[in-house]
Every structure is written in C-alpha cells, then in structure tokens.
C-alpha cells in the first residue's frame, strides 16, 4: 500500500493515453498549459494527504461510519480536487457487492479486487456514466464477448477528469431493457487502453497572464467525451455483462458523493454570492440603500435556505446495510433543486449590486502596467479604506465565477448533477419520506376515527361526514 506524491501522480499519467484538446492530440497532459491546471490541482491534493506511514491512505477510500465521519468526509470533499468525489463514489459501490455477488460470484470478487487495488495504489477514478449519443452508435455496448474479456464500442460523455485519472469506471446510465442487454455493461478501463480516445473541454483560461481569472486558473476540470473504439476489457475488469435487471442499480450509488458534494457546494456557493454582494455593496457605498438591501435580503434568504437544506441532509443522514453513513437523499435533491432554480436570479441581484465593472474592469496586467496603474488605482477606489486593487479583485472573482467561461460551465454542470432542475425536483419528491406526511394528513383529517354518529346523520343527511379541521 503506497500513497503517491504529486510528482509521482504526474509521472503515473504519462502513459501514452490518447487525449485531444481543441482538435489537437496532446502527448502529455501534465505539460499542456490548460490541462496542467487540473493536473496541478490533483497533485496538490496528493501532496496534502501524502504519508509514507505504512497503511496510510487518502480519506476518499474510507466510507464514513458515523455522523462525525460524514462531516469530515464532506469537509474533505469540499477542499479536495474534483476527483475525490468521483473516486469516493466508486468506493461506494462496495455497498452493492452482496447484490452483485448474488448475480454472479465473480462480479463481486472482481469489483472488490478492483476497488481494493485503487485504494492500495492511491489511484483516482472517473465515473463514465452518461452515454455519448442517443442513437445506438453513441451508446457504449459490448460488441464481442470472448473467454478472456469483452470488446466495447460507443461513447461516454461528461466524464470529468478522464484524461487525468488512472481508471475509468463505466456503468450503464440507467436501467437497460432486455432487448439491449449488450448495453448492460459495467467495467473498469484504463485511459491508455488501445481504442480509448479522450476529447477534453476545459474552462481553464486561455489568457497568457491569467491572474484576472482567480478561480478558473486553479480549479478547472477537463470535461471529457470518451470514445471507445473496439476497446478490449480483460475479464477481471468486468463487473456486469448483460444482466439488465441490475443495470440501473449502479448509477445511483456511484453518484452519491458527487450529488452530496454538489448540494454542499450549493450552500457554500450561496454564502459566497451573499458575501460578494455585501462586500461590493459596501465598497460601492450602497449597502444602506433600500433597493440594494432588498436584493441582499433575497440573497440572504436563499443562502439560509440552501444551508438549511444541506444541514437537513446531514441531520437526517441514513445508514446503509453495510454501515455507511450518507446524507439524506431527499434533502440533497431538494437543496440542489431549490438552490439551482433561484441561482440565476441571485446572480442577477449580485450583478445589479456590483454594476458593469464586473465585466469591464481591466486585467491585473493593466494594473501592473506603469502607464495605466495610476489611473486604475485612482478610479477604482471609492473611498478611504477601499483600494482600487481590492475592488478590482472582487470584480475579477465575480466575473470569473458568474459571467465568464468557467461560470457558465460550472452553472450548467452543477445544474445537470442529479439530472437537471426538473429531475432534481422529481427526485426530491421520490425520495421524500412521503408516508410520514400522508400519515400526518390522515391524522389531521381524522381519517382513522369513526364517522359521525348514525343518529346525527339521520337528522341532517345532507351534511358531509367529515368537516375541515381548523387551520393549525
């Protein structure tokens, strides 16, 4: 069992994988200026948690077993790079080992072996779930089954970090019907396997001097479209092959930490939006103006409700049969649905409070240019105690996260985790403890009490047998 350092991680992904960016083949992600943003982020997590103590391992490989563990896990996911949530999601598939074993004993053994190896070798795993297309050609399917493995063809989209991780874990995007058993395939594929081609889209800034992109220059993720062109997968890496009845079960478990991270981040993001709005309002000298306070109050309500939603998810955490403690799914979906539906409105308020300098404040390089420095400092400051530089930094941050390439990618991506706004709402309903609220309704309606006495019914037969309860 060995933990990698950041540099060892970098070396480990220089393995000849076929990756592409903007129509060009990239030989080495670690030295490509745009992809290196993600590589460096992951490497920082490796270095932060590295330990040479025997048996040490990254927190992402350990499932929380108590409320305290869960709080620690969420704090870890919030501060670690993006592969932490996808790798932890893969580890959560241990939950399904008994059911997999019931289908075929080898599936259970192979998956357990794979997960153990990831933990032992400190590997990062990307979840390859969504099919690349609607037509058959765009779906990953088994085109040949051999004694020693299977051959895959098709595509998976939205595979976060595929080009910079060690393993791709493929599962069906949902339940597969019996006619398409060839799509009921779950397996692990190494990114450098022959026939795997990884196309990257990244919101890492293209600007040579990218200091005016304070978030995206450090925290961008390659969002990958992965082609599988007759990719051979050895039998020991196949965890499901053709059992359509079980095909829909994997995706939900695989995504739990990704959804949880997203809901937690919604609460964090809402607080950041409020913090930025209040800060820039004060810097602009408008924080006491009624219509500004009105907007700030709406953001405050939103931030409070997002935090409340996430707190509820933690407070009502559930324990799986194997003992893993996980956030309440209904609250996770509700937080995402509510936070997401109001997100654009809140950004509108933030922009309205900030003003158009969000877009038009010049770059840090202009601030450093001797010819323009004095003008920027002079005209961006607003009052004693508010420097031009500080205000410029706030505007850069707001633009980067809410009105530029990274902001657009992030908004859409977070909206899609959990299936989009409508799907999140529906999932919140489907996971809601609906029996409890029905019972409450029945109780107030007195459905389980005896009806009006027969004598009274006889005297006024036209009256309904149940009256509305007083409003409580």
């Amino acid at each position, binding site marked *: 069992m060995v933990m990698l350092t950041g540099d060892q991680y970098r070396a480990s992904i220089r393995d000849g994988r076929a990756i592409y960016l903007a129509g060009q083949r990239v030989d080495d992600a670690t030295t490509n200026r745009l992809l290196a943003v993600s590589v460096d982020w992951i490497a920082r997590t490796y270095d932060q948690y590295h330990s040479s103590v025997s048996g040490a391992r990254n927190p992402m490989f350990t499932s929380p077993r108590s409320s305290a563990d869960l709080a620690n896990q969420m704090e870890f996911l919030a501060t670690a790079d993006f592969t932490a949530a996808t790798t932890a999601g893969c580890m959560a598939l241990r939950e399904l080992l008994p059911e997999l074993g019931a289908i075929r004993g080898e599936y259970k053994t192979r998956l357990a072996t794979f997960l153990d190896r990831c933990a032992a070798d400190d590997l990062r795993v990307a979840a390859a779930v969504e099919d690349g297309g609607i*037509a058959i050609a765009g779906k990953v399917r088994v085109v040949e089954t051999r004694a020693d493995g299977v051959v895959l063809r098709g595509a998976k989209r939205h595979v976060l970090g595929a080009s910079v991780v060690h393993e791709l874990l493929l599962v069906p995007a949902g339940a597969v019907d019996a006619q398409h058993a060839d799509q009921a395939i779950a397996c692990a594929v190494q990114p450098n396997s022959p026939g795997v081609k990884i196309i990257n889209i990244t919101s890492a800034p293209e600007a040579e001097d990218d200091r005016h992109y304070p978030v995206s220059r450090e925290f961008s993720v390659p969002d990958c479209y992965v082609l599988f062109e007759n990719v051979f997968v050895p039998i020991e890496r196949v965890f499901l092959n053709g059992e359509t009845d079980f095909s829909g079960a994997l995706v939900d478990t695989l995504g739990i930490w990704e959804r949880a991270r997203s809901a937690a981040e919604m609460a964090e993001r809402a607080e950041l939006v409020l913090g930025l709005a209040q800060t820039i309002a004060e810097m602009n000298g408008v924080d006491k103006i009624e219509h500004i306070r009105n907007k700030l109050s709406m953001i405050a309500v939103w931030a409070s409700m997002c935090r409340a939603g996430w707190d509820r998810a933690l407070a009502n955490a559930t324990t799986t049969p194997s003992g893993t403690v996980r956030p309440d799914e209904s609250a996770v979906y509700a937080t995402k649905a509510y936070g997401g539906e109001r997100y654009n409105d809140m950004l*509108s308020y933030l922009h309205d409070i900030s003003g158009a300098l969000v*877009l038009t404040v010049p770059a840090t390089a202009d601030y450093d240019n001797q010819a323009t420095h004095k003008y920027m400092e002079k005209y961006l400051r607003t009052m004693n105690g508010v420097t031009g530089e500080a205000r410029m930094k706030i505007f850069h941050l707001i633009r980067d996260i809410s009105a530029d390439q990274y902001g657009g990618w992030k908004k859409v991506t977070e909206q899609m985790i959990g299936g989009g706004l409508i799907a999140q709402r529906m999932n919140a309903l489907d996971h809601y403890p609906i029996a409890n609220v029905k019972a409450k309704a029945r109780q107030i309606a007195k459905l389980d009490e005896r009806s009006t006495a027969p004598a009274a019914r006889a005297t006024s037969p036209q009256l309904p047998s149940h009256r509305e309860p007083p409003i409580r």
Partner: protein
Amino acid sequence: MPMMTGAQYKESLKDGRLTYIDGDQVSDPANHPLLKTAVDVAARVYDSFYSADAGASNPAYIIPRSIDEYRDRAHRLSQGVTDMTLGTTGVTLLALTSAAAKLGEVNPAYSDRIYAYVEYCKKHDLRCAEVITDSKGHRKKRPNKQSDPDFYVHVVDRNADGVFITGAKMHISASSIEHELVIMPTKAMYPGEEDYAIACAVPVNARGVSIIDMTYAPRAEDTRHYPVSGKVNCPEGFVVFDNVFVPNERVFLDGETAHAATLAHSLGLWERAAGLGDAGESADREVGMAALLAEANGMAEDPRIRDQLASLVVYATMCRAAGEAAMVNATKTEDGNMLPSPLFVSALKYFKSEFRARLLDIQHDVAGDLLVNAPTVGDFEHPDLHAALGEAFEVPGFTAEDRLRLFHYVRDTTADAYGGWAFVTGQLAGGGQHAQRIVTMRQYNMEHAKKIARRAVGIGEFRKSGEENWKPL
C-alpha cells in the same frame, strides 16, 4: 467628404490613440489579436453601406421625425451589416438630437452645436461612443463631496476657446475602435455641481485620453466553436480623461445643472429602445433554440419539456406585444423628433431581464451537459475522431455537425464568456432593474388607474349623492 471603406476605417484608427489591453499598449487595433475581430466587423459594416456617391451617408445618421421615418431608418439599417460601433453611433446621435430642443432653451448655441456635430459625424462617416458612466467613487455621495473630486468627469480649467476635463468613464463599449467620445453627465446635477454638468465630444486620439480595454473575445487559436463571439465581439473601454482640452464648438452643456440629466434620460431611452425593433424576433429565436435542442435530444414530445416551452412561448409573445406597443404609443419631441413610448420601452426591458434567468435555465435543462462539453469543430475534423463522433452525435433529423453547431451556439451565447457578458449587459445597459421600475412608475398613468379603481368602487367623484358607499356589483 465621401463615405469610408472598411480599409479606410482601419487606417483611420492609426491616429496615435493611447489604448491598452492585457497590460500592453496597442499601436494598431486592426492587427491586435484581441481587437482584430471587432475591427474587422466594423470594417465590414463600413463596406456594406459604402457608396462613392457624393452626399451618400450611413442611415444611422438619419434623425427620424415620424414613425414612418423611424421604420424606414431601421429598414435601411437592416440592409447592411450592423455592429456595436454603428449601434452606439446611432443611439448617441439620437440621444443628442432628442435633447437638443431642451438644451437649446438654455443656450441656443448648444442646440446648434449638436446639429452641427451630427452633420460633422455624418459627413466624415465617424463612429461615436456613448460615454456616460462615471467611476462614481462612493455611490451615495454627491460628485463634489467625494474623497477625490475626479470621481465624476468635470471641468478643471477653461479658457476663451474651451474647457479642460478630468475624470474617467467606465464600460464604454467599442470606444477604442471608434473615432469620437460623446461625453454626457451620468445623472442629475444640482447647484454647486456646475463643473460636473458637462456634455461634450472628444476625438479618441485627443491628448490626455487613455483607454484600457477588456474584452470577451475568445482567446482560443481556433475560434470556430465560438460561432457568435468568434465572429462578432467588442471591447469595453475604461476611458480616462487627464486634463483633456475640448473646444467650445464641441461643448453641448457646460454648467447648467438643471439640464444635466436631460441627456442621460434621452440616452437611456434610446439605449433601452435599441432592441425594440427585433424584440419579438429575438425572443422567438430563444424559443426556437430551446425547441431545436429538444428535438436534437429526442425530447420534443416529453410533456415536461413541452411545459417548459409553453413558458417560453408566453414570454416571447409578450415581448413582441410590448415592442409593438412602444411604437404604437410613440410620441414626438418639441423638435418634431419621434420617441418610442418610454413606458413600454422600460416595461419591456424589465420584463426581458426578469425572465432571462428562467429562460437560460430552461435552455440549459433541455440542452443537458453536452451544452458545455460538446467537442469542438477542431475535434470533429480530426481524422482520429471524425468518424466516431459523426456516428455518436447523429440523430434522425440532425447530422452530427448540426447538433454540434446547436450546442456551440447556445453555449457561446449563454454559458461562456460572451454569454456572461450578454447576461450582465442585458440587465444593466440603460440602467438596472431598479432604474427600469422607477422609469416605468414615472411613465405609468397612475391617476388614470386610480380613477377607474374609484369608479369600480363607487367612491370619490363616482359616489352618487344619497347612495350608500357599498354597492354590490
């Protein structure tokens, strides 16, 4: 003086102006990687309207005096290419002439200078920037109470020939690639603030003018997956005036505080009205985009998607209605110039901004994550990838290229650098939401509304003597 060709326009920008972007000084905007596209588009605009005929001019310089003239102007403009430089020129000159009558009452020279200036721009085929928003400092403090008197552009010196101005103006679209800066006070001024009640025109290359640009122009080497911003974009200027001399004939207001807001209100109206002509068309395009995305993702018949589309259809229909109402209820200035109804213009602007957040959510929900991670045109053309991407992306009714184009278009306009710019400027240009509410309230006939309410209730002048106050319907 003949009209300019695109090539002549490009040459005209090499006039010694001081422009900066990304920390570097720009000597030739036409050949700077981040400004080149904007200049190329402006040059195409010039070429599209070019005529060698003596006396020919761009229709943007027409000052309409009736709805028919307004529509004729819009029609003639639609025959050529348009862009930000032509848009700001038209709006700025309309704002000046709309205010000319009122300013002329204070000083007839102001009105004469405005009309002479419009003729000058028309004759030389010049592009004008709207230069209005000051750096403002502490927003709650008056210009003359700031910790730095230069937070609002003001007159710092004068002589018999003109005035000297100092200050900075923010978010001045296209200023670094135009010829003229038309400066107006950003808001109403009061006695004691005479130096701040200054409106004038300054050439971009005037001594003491510096422009620091920011742009959403894509920086990628291959910009084909930016189908809009890769072809049309525009820098935003942070414009500094450091003791800039302005000759008298270019001064349109100088010290008359009571009229400082006249130009701002006039400009605000025309800025808000800029999208009026195609309010219905642009809203329909957004509906169409969502409908195409639904088809391209095989979800056109999904009842939940149809429900979302219905919301967009109601929105588009109301946008068209408000745009038409603004024209039907147009009024005239004392000079006889036509003005679209400020009530409907502001209400439409507010409504569009208010719904924009929801519109984007619907488009994004329908599009799915491919919106932001669909491979680029360069990827699609790569021989290693072309065949497989072609197979994977194709669906009945849409080739792979069709779908990629659709995703790229909606990403570029709603979820990328240009989309962010459009989201914010759509809301803030011509004043934010609060300003729209104030203008709408001011323009709304509240007395009429209260009167018909009194009539319905039977009180006030509608209460018949001897009748009870309460009268059932």
